[in-house]
């Protein structure tokens, strides 16, 4: 079987390169067929190591399948297909090829059986995603440089950690690691940078919303979820991750509540959702890890759907601020319905995909008797409905009449939205195929009377809170400062101030130098000038006298 030796990730990467040369129907065919072929390979390939070899004395397993890697490779391939369908009418000749390189390297990263291969694909993802940002034009350029700087930092941390790990153990195997050595802390830090964890969460809402209307759909899926995958494999049950995850959950909610840009709301919401997954990984029971993995799977679909609807609005209106939008349901009913389905799914409404995945994480917190974690997750579930579930559709599609009457987007974009909306609801009802793909076998039943009723109470009363407190949520033309202030304002300010100080110092030195030089010149003239002490002609008698005195002094010193 070809599926046993073909590399689905490299296939998609190569398709990305081919796309750069193709035009018209051939381009569309390759863009859609490559992810589907990858999906087929991933589903058909047998478990185990498919590629192995030695390089520079390192044992490599560049292609290996198990339940966890297969789950992520499946959703990445599916996402690449949906994203490519949505982006078919993107005018940029760079974006779709770059996006497929990015998607293919994400597939390669999750199918990497060793740390060296993982690192190579990890960095290739950074290149692909930066190119996706660059294709959005000049407006995204500065944000893309900040994005790249953070990811290069993450890559350096990861590489240092991997080098330390290989040096200490002699093994490149990627398995569970304990936080017992600096190398493992470095690896964890490298992973967390890509997950959007504190203190550097700001790279995500800074860069992603600057991508094109289709670019952000791709960006939302791969980088953070690859980070979730490597945390699942490398650091399950690390308690630190519970607190990191909970911080991300509430960071995302609070910042999204204050945000005006519709796609930045969704970007903060990515950090929020990845926070749920990281918390689950930190809890570390089979139920929690299954929940984190399932949530990554469902989240990719509904977040892509939300960003497709936001992308359609941006495509149709050219506007991205809530203060400019509103009332679009009149002329964009399909986009409104699909965006709302995505919003319900992210809020984990019963009968949507988010419900069947997120309940597993809450259940794990309950089973572990982690009262505070469980309470925080329940509050956060309410908060997700608040900041993404209602806020996004309300301000974009309803709210007031902005006077905008945009058309629905082209057919390929509508089809992509319909496909992902169908998956959101389909997975919410027929969740068994998803549960069968999870890393641990499970008999979890999401739909019990108690689960459904308590979830509905939580969500609907958050809805009540939203509408009761709506005056406090009205959007203003503002942003909220974040850690990126340090490298966007403070550091450039310090550098500028430093240059000013250096200039002043140079000036002072020059002035002082002038004075000093004059004094040196005067002293030199006084001592060595034409008629000065050391330069004038001395009499022979004077010379003889001084020589005699010197010799007498010498004698004295000798006999003393």
């Amino acid at each position, binding site marked *: 079987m070809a599926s046993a030796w073909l590399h689905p990730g490299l296939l998609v990467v190569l398709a990305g390169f081919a796309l750069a040369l193709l035009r018209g129907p051939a381009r569309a065919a390759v863009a859609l067929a490559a992810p589907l072929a990858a999906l087929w390979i991933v589903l058909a390939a047998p478990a185990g190591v498919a590629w192995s070899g030695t390089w520079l004395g390192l044992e490599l397993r560049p292609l290996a399948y198990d339940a966890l890697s297969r789950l992520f490779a499946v959703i990445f391939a599916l996402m690449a297909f949906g994203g490519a369908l949505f982006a078919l009418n993107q005018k940029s000749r760079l974006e779709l090829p770059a996006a497929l390189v990015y998607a293919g390297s994400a597939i390669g990263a999750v199918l990497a059986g060793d740390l060296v291969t993982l690192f190579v694909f990890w960095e290739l993802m950074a290149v692909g995603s930066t190119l996706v940002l660059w294709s959005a034009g000049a407006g995204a350029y500065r944000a893309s440089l900040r994005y790249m700087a953070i990811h290069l930092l993450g890559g350096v941390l990861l590489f240092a950690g991997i080098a330390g790990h290989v040096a200490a153990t002699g093994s490149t195997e990627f398995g569970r690691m304990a936080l017992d050595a600096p190398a493992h802390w470095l690896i964890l830090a490298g992973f967390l940078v890509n997950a959007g964890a504190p203190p550097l969460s700001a790279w995500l809402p800074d860069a992603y919303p600057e991508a094109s209307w289709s670019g952000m759909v791709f960006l939302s899926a791969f980088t953070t979820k690859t980070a979730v995958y490597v945390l699942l494999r490398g650091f399950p049950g690390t308690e630190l991750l519970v607190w990191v995850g909970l911080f991300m959950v509430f960071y995302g909610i609070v910042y999204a509540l204050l945000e005006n840009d519709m796609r930045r709301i969704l970007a903060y919401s990515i950090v929020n959702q990845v926070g749920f997954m990281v918390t689950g990984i930190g809890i570390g029971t089979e139920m929690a890890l299954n929940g984190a993995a399932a949530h990554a799977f469902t989240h990719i679909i509904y977040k892509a759907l939300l960003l497709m609807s936001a992308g359609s609005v941006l495509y149709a209106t050219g506007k991205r601020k809530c203060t400019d939008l509103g*009332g679009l349901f009149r002329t964009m009913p399909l986009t409104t319905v699909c965006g709302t389905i995505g919003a319900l799914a992210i809020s984990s409404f019963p009968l949507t995909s988010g419900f069947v995945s997120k309940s597993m994480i809450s259940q794990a917190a309950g089973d572990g008797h982690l009262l505070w974690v469980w309470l925080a997750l329940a509050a956060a579930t*309410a908060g997700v409905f608040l900041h993404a579930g209602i806020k996004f559709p309300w301000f974009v599609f309803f709210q007031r009449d902005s006077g905008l009457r945009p058309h629905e987007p082209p057919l390929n974009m509508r089809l992509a939205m319909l496909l992902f909306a169908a998956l959101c609801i389909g997975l919410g009802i027929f969740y068994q195929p998803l549960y069968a793909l999870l890393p641990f076998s499970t008999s979890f039943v999401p739909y019990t009377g108690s689960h459904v*009723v308590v979830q509905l109470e939580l969500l609907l009363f958050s809805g009540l809170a939203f509408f009761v*407190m709506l005056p406090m949520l009205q959007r203003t033309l503002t942003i*909220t400062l974040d850690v990126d202030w340090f490298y966007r304002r403070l550091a450039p300010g310090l550098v500028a101030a430093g240059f000013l100080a250096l200039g002043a110092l140079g000036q002072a030195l020059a002035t002082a130098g002038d004075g000093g030089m004059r004094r040196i010149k005067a002293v030199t003239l006084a001592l060595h000038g034409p008629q000065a002490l050391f330069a004038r002609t001395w009499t022979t008698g004077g010379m003889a006298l001084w020589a005699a005195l010197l010799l007498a002094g010498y004698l004295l010193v000798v006999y003393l």
Partner: protein
Amino acid sequence: MSGHWLVRPDTLRLLWRVFIAVLVLTVVAEFLVAHHPHFRVESVPAFGAWYGFLACAGMILFAKGLAVFLKRPDTYYGEEGSDG
């Protein structure tokens, strides 16, 4: 304002009534299903309802408080604030 049926005052009033009826129904439904609480707080009546509402109110107030210190015009960094 456009005369779309969804934004007429009558419709909005009706939507509010339906919404409140649904809210009441979910609380009533809680007494009709079997619970397996992990924690004592879950057994407090209508836990999801009041906890969800208070959690959201708390988060909104916290966000507003944070905004006092961290809110800036969206032209703050210079390059932002343009559409497209």
